């Protein structure tokens, strides 16, 4: 057992982070808010060139030939910077939908209906989007449509999507700890940085704990692919992101309540992701049933 990142995995993470920092910094983030529901196609192709979408495609099929752990690391980085677009559906379509692997083709999935992300921007829509109605999305960076629920519809790769969603949530959770700590170290009230107050320290420490606990099980789920590990990863990563962004806002006080602050963007995205297929109820029930099965 060597449950830490390998050298290659570290290098991958660094590479993705550097790419995203260079190509999707704060200004691009704010600009993307104005552009939505359009996508930055140049960025999308650049991601394709870097192998983001073909990450798990076999080398024989022109892919990078890596596995789920590497995909999780890449999606964690995407979650850190709030990278917009139907990233998960497109990566899953690589090798099946022409152009998805290279970032030429943007793919979104309808699954069983309900909410569909980036319907208007997608080149290929998998599933039946008939009757789709545009929704005024709470997240300015994720256009949403409402599609009638299709009980008979095929939900594609729900556990996999749930795991990659957890990875994005993990990245968001980790990033909001940094934002909170940065603010707490510099913002002064009552003659000292607010991070010197235990009440603020406790908020920040609690955020970190949620992230590190989630990280362990998200990575483990990527290694094992075990449905119960994935359900646990999803539950804890959702919590790390949603609760973390919420606490980050609290640490920022009034400063975080403005549109100009980025904190709300993390919270809103975390809300959107938390509602993707694989609900809290489903995860908890699966984990409960698992207890009986394991304990026999």
């Amino acid at each position: 057992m060597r449950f830490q990142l390998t050298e290659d995995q570290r290098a991958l993470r660094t590479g993705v982070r550097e790419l995203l920092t260079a190509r999707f910094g704060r200004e691009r983030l704010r600009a993307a808010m104005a552009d939505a529901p359009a996508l930055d196609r140049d960025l999308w192709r650049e991601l394709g060139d870097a192998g983001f979408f073909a990450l798990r495609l076999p080398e024989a099929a022109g892919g990078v030939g890596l596995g789920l752990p590497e995909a999780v690391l890449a999606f964690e980085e995407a979650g850190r910077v709030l990278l917009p677009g139907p990233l998960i559906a497109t990566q899953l379509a690589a090798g099946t939908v022409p152009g998805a692997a290279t970032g030429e083709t943007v793919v979104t999935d309808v699954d069983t209906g309900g909410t569909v992300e980036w319907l208007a921007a997608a080149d290929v829509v998998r599933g039946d989007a008939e009757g789709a109605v545009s929704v005024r999305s709470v997240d300015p960076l994720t256009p949403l449509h409402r599609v009638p629920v299709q009980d008979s519809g095929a939900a594609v790769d729900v556990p996999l999507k749930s795991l990659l969603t957890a990875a994005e949530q993990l990245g968001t959770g980790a990033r909001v700890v940094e934002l909170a700590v940065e603010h707490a170290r510099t913002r002064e009230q009552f003659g000292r940085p607010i991070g010197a107050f235990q009440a603020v320290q406790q908020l920040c420490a609690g955020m970190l704990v949620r992230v590190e606990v989630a990280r362990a099980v998200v990575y483990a789920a990527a290694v094992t692919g075990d449905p119960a590990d994935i359900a646990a990863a999803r539950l804890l990563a959702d919590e790390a992101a949603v609760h973390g962004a919420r606490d980050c806002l609290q640490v920022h006080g009034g400063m975080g309540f403005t549109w100009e602050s980025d904190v709300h963007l993390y919270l809103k995205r975390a809300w959107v992701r938390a509602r993707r297929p694989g609900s809290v109820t489903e995860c908890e029930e699966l984990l409960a049933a698992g207890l009986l099965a394991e304990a026999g």
Partner: protein
Amino acid sequence: MDLTDTPQEAEFRARLREWLAKALPSLPDRPSPDDWPGRRAYDLGWQRTLYDAGYGEVHWGAEPAVRMIFLEETEKAGAPYVGANFVGLLHAGPTIAAEGTEEQKARWLPPVLRGEEVWCQGFSEPDAGSDLAALRTRARRDGDDYVVSGSKIWTSHAEVADWCELLVRTDPDAPKHRGITWLAMPMDAPGITVRPLRTLAGSNEFAEVFLDEVRVPVANRVGAENDGWRVTMVTLSFERGTAFVGEVVACRRVLGELALAARENGRWDDPVLRRRLGRLNAEFRALWRLTQWNVSDSVPGVGGSVFKLRYSHARQELYEAAAEVLGDPAALDLEQPWVLDRLSSLSYTIAAGTSQIQHNIVAERVLGLPKGR
């Protein structure tokens, strides 16, 4: 990221399982919790058995991953705990190994590994709990001895220990961390009084130790005079990575038992309770993975406070859920499983650093926030 055993680990695990399957059935019955001499004999006997089988040094010499396998497999097999050997194997022993002279190592370490001598810990004091460095037990030099007076609290196995790793204040004028010395005190020295300390769970797991002019040879000092704080810190992080392996395995077993009990008594049909148990499954799976992560980390320490904060809370939640599964009046019946555990679990957010202190540690040492109050 690899969660499978290496060939060496797999071999160790297989050999250990095989050995446990043979060794455990022939173990004597466990003594009752109140039978201190019986517990001493039982725990020393188990350590001797391990020693004879080649597992005596697993807590020290082995790779963390191997130590983890040992703890996981022994817990799963229902083997005895480290028990009375805890301080010797996991605390005083490693301290002596790291900071003691060759003579000290030769004197104290083999009897611990062979299951011959029991150590206890004399750190906490009534007025020095979270603020351990505020300890006031005094030691003055008198010839070749230190003469020690004061009192210690929360000492386990004091009744049956041969030795006590003792922190004393040798320089009352120095800053509080700089006047402390580490001594090995023989528990049969005149002037030592041990008084059992009854906990809220009704058990006498701990004791108070009163020291009245107890003479401890200067030769029993490990490290330099007034350097005891550093000496202690060297080992406080020693076992952090694997400290809770057995307990997490045990919690996951309890959780499974709770699910079965709930199915048995019908409470499984309550979705609120059932989903709560499912959530706890997520919790302990994650804690298990975090343990594996920490054990694999080449720089141990950082993960310790994070783990402890979450684990101590999760384990309390586990026994709260147990009360709901038990229902009425079983949840109030000390004869029922888990009810005493629920009481004991109340200490988890207090002992070895309260959750409040752990939050501070994480905030200041891990996150780098300014020193708070």
